[in-house]
Structure formats: C-alpha cells, structure tokens
C-alpha cells in the first residue's frame, strides 16, 4: 500500500497513531497501575496517586506472611503436571491424527476439540459428586485430571499442525535407513517439532495456570490455586489494597514472561492450529 506524502497522508498517519495509543493506554494502563499499587505502602495508599515511595512490603506480606505462597506452589505443581500429562498422551495422538488416514479420524479429532468448548459448569457438577465419592476432591490428581479438558485439546490440535508440516518422506527415509517406527519418532520427528512442542507446552501452561472455575469448585484449602485465592484477597474485610495488587501481580507475572517467549507461535496456538502464524 502506497504511503502518500501529502498533508492528508500525514494527518491520517498521526490520527492512526493517536488511535493506536489510545487503545494501548486502555490495554496496558491497568497492568501498570496494578504494579504501581503493589509497590505502594499502606500509609500512602489513599493520599498519593503516581508519586510515592515504593516498597516491597506488600510482596513480603503476601508471600512470606500469608499462605499465598502455598497456593502459588499448588498452581505450579498442578499446571506443570497437567501439561506434562498432556504432552505424554497428546504428542503421539497429534502424530496419529496428522499422519494416518483411518475411518474415525475426523470424528475423534472433533470430539477432542469439543472438550475445549464444553461449559465448565456442566463438567463440574457431576465431577464434584464423583470426586467427593472417590476422594479426588481437593487433590492434585483431581485437578490435573480435570485440567486435561483445557490442555489436551489445545496441545493435540497445535501439534497436529506441526506434524502435518513435516514431509512423510523423511519418516520413510529414516525407516529405510534401518530405524523402527518408534525410533523414527524419537530421533527424527520429535526434534523437528521441538519448537511447536515448547510453544504448545507453554501456552497450555498459561491456560492451566489461569484456570479458575475448576479449582474454585473442585478444590479447597489443600489444593486450591493462586488464581482463585487472589480473588479472595479482595473479598476479605480488612483490605490491604497493596497486597491485593501484589497478589495479582505475582499471579500474572509468570504468564506475561512466558508469553514473551512463545510470541512466534502464539497465533497458531491460540487458534488451535487453524491459523498458521
């Protein structure tokens, strides 16, 4: 598209930039403000806006003197394990769906995808009962299992695209070179999909970390995750707003960092492989 160097062209470009910055303000200001709040000591909470003396006391209070760290680690354990389980189960499945032609292929693929769009409450209602009966309520395993509804479809559909991008000739060549199917998978295919694996794994981790409804209703004091607990901070009677902000920041920080790492693969990931970035 040609750039006109006329006056109207300039006005156009300036207004475009202005609009963009307005949206950027809308999108990013809340995050900045949250960080600012988290660094504000209680004493200056109501009296200052942007100019204050920053302190880490809120983070200290949240992390060291409350049980928030316990929930933070819960989230870590559950999310990481959920992703690992999805990897072990999902990677071969993604390969099978990418490569082989068999009768139920698209049906199975669509079923897996549909898990992502099932209303959470629909699953939770019976699961609540089942978990109570089987003792899975408020356990790591119970959450890891439910989280598969979030992580597995995502992983399989993203990786399917990556496997489809690999020419089948390479597998055939490796087989002719003397490797069994399984060895071909490990030695040739996995290294080739490694970027996709990492991206999919991280994206799944982000979604697992952010899960709210499942841990809210299927876990309690023992296994609950930081995402749920952060909300509780705000609901308590004596509200230390700075600490709330600190809790929110701690909860949000890992994903922001991870998102920066997997930028390149984000499009493919978010659209479940429907759009190649």
């Amino acid at each position, binding site marked *: 598209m040609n750039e006109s160097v006329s006056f109207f062209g300039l006005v156009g470009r300036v207004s475009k930039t202005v*609009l*963009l910055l307005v*949206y*950027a303000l809308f999108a*990013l200001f*809340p*995050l900045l403000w949250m960080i600012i*709040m988290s660094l504000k000591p209680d004493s200056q*909470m109501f009296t200052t*806006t942007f100019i204050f003396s920053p302190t880490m006391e809120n983070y200290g209070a949240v992390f060291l003197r409350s049980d928030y760290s316990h929930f933070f680690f819960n989230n870590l354990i559950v999310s990481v394990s959920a992703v690992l389980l999805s990897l*072990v*189960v999902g990677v*071969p*499945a993604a*390969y*099978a*769906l990418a*490569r*082989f032609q*068999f009768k139920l292929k698209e049906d199975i693929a669509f*079923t897996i995808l549909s898990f992502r*769009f*099932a*209303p959470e*409450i*629909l*699953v939770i*209602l*019976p699961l*609540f*009962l*089942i978990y109570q009966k089987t003792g899975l309520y408020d356990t790591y395993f119970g959450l890891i*299992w439910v989280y*598969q*509804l979030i992580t597995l479809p995502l992983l399989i559909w993203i990786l399917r695209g990556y496997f489809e991008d690999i020419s089948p000739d390479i597998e055939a060549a490796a087989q002719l070179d003397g490797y069994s*199917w399984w060895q071909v998978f490990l030695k040739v295919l996995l290294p080739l999909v490694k970027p996709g694996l990492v991206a999919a794994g991280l994206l799944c981790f982000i979604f697992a970390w*952010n899960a*709210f*409804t499942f841990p*809210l*209703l299927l876990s309690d004091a023992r296994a609950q995750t930081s*995402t749920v607990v*952060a909300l509780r901070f*705000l609901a308590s009677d004596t509200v230390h*707003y700075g600490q*709330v902000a600190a809790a*929110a920041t701690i*909860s*949000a920080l890992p*994903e*922001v960092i*991870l*998102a920066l790492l997997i*930028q390149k693969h*984000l*499009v493919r990931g*978010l*659209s479940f492989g429907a*759009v*190649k970035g």
Partner: protein
Amino acid sequence: MSTTVVLPPEGPTIEPARTELSKSAAKYAKRKALRPYLILTPTLLLTIGILIPFFAAIYLSFTDFTLRSSDYSFIGFDNYVSMLQNPDFWHSLIVTLQYAFLCTTVEMLLGIGVALLLNEENPISKFLRIVLIFPLMIAPVIGTLIWKLMTNPSVGILRTPMSWIGLGEFKWGASPDTAMFSLVLIDAWVYTPFVIILVLAGLRSLPRSPYEAAMIDGGSAWFVFKNLTLPMLAPVLLITLVFRLMLSLQEFSIIFALTEGGPGDTTMSLSLLAYNRGFPFYGVAEAIPIMLFLWAIVYLISFILIGFWRKAQQRASGVA
C-alpha cells in the same frame, strides 16, 4: 529375458483376477493398519475418562439428586420441563445471549480496527504488537480483579477521571443499569487482543499478487477491499468469531468475580444460574439441564459457523 516386449492383455479391460496377498503380506498390511489405533490408545482412554462426567451429567439430569441427601429417584424429564417453565431460565438465556453478542461484536470490531492499525511497519506498531497481548495472558479473574480495584471508591484510579466527565457516581458492577456494561468492558479488555492477534496474522499472510494485479487493472480501494481482502480474510475472521462466540456464551469467571450474577439477577447468565442452583442450593440435578441446553446452543452455533468457515477457506484459496 530383457528384450521381450510385453504387451497389455487383449480384450476389454474388465476387472482382472486380483492376485491374492501372501500370508506375510496380509499380516504386514494389517500391522500397518492397526498402528494409528495403537498410538491413539492413551488418548482414547483419557477421552473416555473425560466423557464419563458428561454421561454422568446426562444421567443425573433425569433424577432429583441433590447434595443434601444421598438417595434419589428417577424423575424423567421433570427437570427439563420445570427448567423451561421457569422464567429465571429464560431471563438467563437472554442475559447469556446479550452478553455473548455484545462482547463478540465489540471485540471483533475493535480487534479488527486495531489490527488494521498495527499492520504497519513502524517501531511503535512493532513494539505494540508484542506488548498488547498481555491482557489476554492474564487470568480473566485477575483482570476482573484489577478493574475492580481501579473502580474501587476508595483507592480506584478511575474515580477522579470519571467525576471529570460527570460520572462520579458510576456504580460499575453494583448497579443493574451499569453491570452489563462493566462486564462487557472487562471481557473486551481481556479478549480483544485475541482478535487482534489472529486478524493481524491473517492480514500479514495475505498474498501480494492479487493486489498487484488489481493495481494494474485499476480497482478502487473499496472494490479491492470487498473482492480481495474480505474473501481472503474471511476464514480467519470466521474462526475468530467462532472462538469468541463460543467462549463468551459460557463465560463464568468474569461474571462470577465481578457480580456473581447480580445485582439481583441482572447478569445471571446460564452458567451462573447453573452454578447457583447447583452449589449454594445443592440442586445438582436441576442445574444440569441448564448446562446441557447451553452446550447444545454452543455446539449448534459452532457447527454452523465452522461450515461457513470451510466454505470461506475454499473461496479464499480460489481468490489467491
């Protein structure tokens, strides 16, 4: 041997006698055919495990099971009937549709607009492309939390600017008039980046040759947009629409975190309604039909839209 001329068999080409496979060949063929199923076994097991609660849900919906007592009886379609007769249900349906429609429309329009703006190669755009995704990466609950803080009457940063434009008494989530607006605002804040990212990827993957041809043939900007950009972008737009629509129809965490369905039942979407029925009131069996209904809607809409998406993909590859 090597100089024999082998001619194809005489006579019309009918089905020739197929040579039988040797036993080892048949076994090999079978082994190859079974492979996909073997590989898929763990996933299939997991899938079945995941399907169990679904079937349990369907079963329970036909009973009067509540969390209060452990015995229950089969009551057929009673739950469904009473659901359809309950005005709360219809109200929630409207709320859900309203929420989904508003969110999706705002996000699609805003997202496409911003994506168009970001489709330039200047340093600001490049930087923003990376940074604007942050709201999406944060848990929607946390996002809601931040907005709650920002609109908090004591410490919220927004109270001053709001009073400048005469809305100092804006009640955000606390008032029936403003609750839906607040929810849509937060949802848009979280999910617009989703639209931006996908549409931007679509824009950047548009092939250049049709545009060059149009420049030579002399098409107006509108013509180019209508006949080239739109059809080629349609698949991405549709898939984005599908994702947003389906997810906003079942949105739970944002509404729960801000209003819990209130005030009263102004924002009681179907998900919230089911939650209320099932948990504080223990009426599990009553709540399930509500969710099944929602799922049916989601399924139906996605089915139709994915059909459009496939057609749009075919059309798009025809243009380029």
